[in-house]
């Protein structure tokens, strides 16, 4: 069964450093998402992406964050200058289309630790 993959599984970085989290969505899916879960808190939406453009973003997704689909398979989340409060589990998801009822398939997550 096709699945969403994410690398790395765990990333440790120093505050102020740039990090890139990578995701390979399911191949025929058109919509891509990033969510994050700070330890002990809810899973929160960050951004959705379609047709090489951001289709929606949350208040969390400020200028420090960016997303890109650099080729036909990868979908990346970049945090330009990490802060301590960026420490979280970051989940990538994809869906076949953008209908509200469409299933979003999640990857296993990347745990980001900012020191």
């Amino acid at each position, binding site marked *: 069964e096709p699945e969403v993959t994410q690398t790395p599984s765990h990333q440790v970085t120093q505050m102020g450093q740039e990090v890139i989290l990578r995701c390979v969505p399911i191949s025929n899916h058109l919509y891509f998402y990033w969510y994050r879960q700070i330890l002990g808190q*809810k899973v929160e939406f960050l951004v*959705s992406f379609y047709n090489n453009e951001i289709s929606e973003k*949350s208040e969390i997704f400020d200028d420090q964050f960016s997303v890109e689909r650099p080729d036909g398979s990868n979908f990346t989340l970049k945090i330009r200058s990490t802060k301590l409060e960026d420490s979280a589990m970051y989940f990538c998801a994809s869906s076949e289309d953008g209908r*509200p009822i469409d299933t979003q398939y999640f990857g296993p*997550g990347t745990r980001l630790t900012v020191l």
Partner: protein
Amino acid sequence: AQSVTQPDIHITVSEGASLELRCNYSYGATPYLFWYVQSPGQGLQLLLKYFSGDTLVQGIKGFEAEFKRSQSSFNLRKPSVHWSDAAEYFCAVVLGGATNKLIFGTGTLLAVQP
């Protein structure tokens, strides 16, 4: 305030016992409703979803959920729990319209004792 509420943070059930996990939402219109499960080290997996039609929805792994409009609830049930069901369960909604982002509840951590 608009929200998705899962009142039970942690539930422990015995293997073979029945299970009900509660979810309430507070939005003006009925949203699209989802239940996801997260096992340790795994991503979120969809158990079932609902928008319209029969209010009792069947999902994977023997789970079902019932939508009750009058109570703004979408509770998840399983008649007989297996040890492998130990995981965290998330209720989520999509409001629809111009958005398809999932809004999650805080989750319920299920422990299964022998």
